[in-house]
């Protein structure tokens, strides 16, 4: 694609993308317990997309760098597999 690069860009733009550890915003932490059946229902519910299945441990896993502690996973889990503890 033909484009001229200039040293200084004009207007609102960012050419650097950084991740902020939004997990620091948490007041309460969801913790997966041994009731987890790997049904994967919590995964699409998570608004931050931080839940994955750990195939070796055979349970769901939460990425605490970005989990904001909204507790939707705990509220909807049919097997009560998500405990809530204070941060």
């Amino acid at each position, binding site marked *: *694609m*033909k*484009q*001229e*690069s*200039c040293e200084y*860009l*004009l*207007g*609102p*733009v*960012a*050419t650097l*993308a950084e991740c902020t550890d939004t997990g620091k915003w948490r007041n309460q932490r969801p913790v997966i317990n041994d009731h987890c059946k790997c049904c994967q229902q919590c995964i699409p519910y998570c608004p931050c997309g931080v839940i994955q299945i750990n195939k070796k441990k055979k349970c769901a896993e939460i990425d605490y760098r970005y989990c904001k502690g909204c507790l939707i996973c705990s509220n909807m889990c049919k097997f009560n597999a998500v405990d809530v503890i204070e941060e």
Partner: protein
Amino acid sequence: MKNKNSKRMMLDGNAAAAEAIKAVNVPVIVMYPITPQTPLVERLSVMVDEKEIDGVCVCVESEHSAMSYVIGSQLTGVRSVTATASVGLALMHEVLGVAAGCRLPIVMPVINRALVAPWSLWCDHQDAMAERDTGWMQLYAENAQEVYDYMIMGYRIAEHKDVLLPLMVCMDGFYVSHAMQTVIVEERSQVEKFVGEYTPCNLVLNPEKPMFVNNLTSPAEFTEMRYQQEVAFENALDVMESVFAKFKQTFGRTYQLIEAVACEDAEVVMIGIGSMCGTIKQVVKEMRKEGKKVGMVKITAFRPFPFTHLKNSIGHVKKIVVLDRSAGLGAAKAPLALEVTSALDGLNCHVTSYVAGLGGRDITEALIEKIFEDNMQEKFSDRKQWVDKKENAMKIRKNLNIDTETEHMETV
């Protein structure tokens, strides 16, 4: 004609704009119809269908979508165009700011038509005047030839590295958009050479060099970004003049930021914008034959406003009349008159604001002559002069639902 490869075509303003877009070969055309613009986009769609333009023609669901589409497309490094009028321009208002703030050199024909309400289809400058603070440049064409020429020059002005601002090429609804005249149309290869190939140099959506475009900007940086646009507007006047000069060199036609006629020894100068200028020039010519010292100035560029050029041109004139085709409701003077008053600030002259020709009403030679005569006789006023208003303005709609004999109306 300068170029032996130019040819003459019978075109109205809409067709002239379409021919210019074809000559530049703008590959992305986004359409939403609105009177009096519709024939313009219809002609473009035929050109794309018949492969006269190598590009795509897209119908969208509204003018807001049209401008959004053009912005997205232009950001990928492709010239993109849409055209609109009146309430269509108003509907895209929100997104006009995005095009301007993101410094996209979009060139858009605007066919000037009154805003609602009252609902009108006809010529008025209210639509473009309502957008004068968006950060878009504005050029006003007097006739179809100017539409063609400004569209072509527009790309070179907007895409200049010291400018990078979007541009509206304004033409009077029906008076220019639908009135046919002979237009000199240039050879395509010459036009393509004049505008050059579009190479985006600022914000670009390129997956290989990703950018976040139009991200949230804090108070710590907003002023500076807005100021960047101010600098661009300051540069734009010089860039316009240099492009006008190059256009004259290439195609032989002369353009200026303002066109002054018979102003050197004028007692009264009338300033106008758009197609009315043709009529004003004719009246000046006739009145001069009678020995009356009148002159006129046509404003070509409204944004940026050429205040220094105006001051240099008519700073010596004592009686100035500004004819606006929009009301400027709530302000001491109509939009163009405010600019002129500001440009001539500190000089010893009288500037009167006249409002005429709203909603498609014709601005006649008789009206212009009357304005000149009144000012020669010093019938000044500080109030905005609604010079073509009918006497019974407050009583033009009698309420037929009331039977005045049997119902008693309380008058306060």
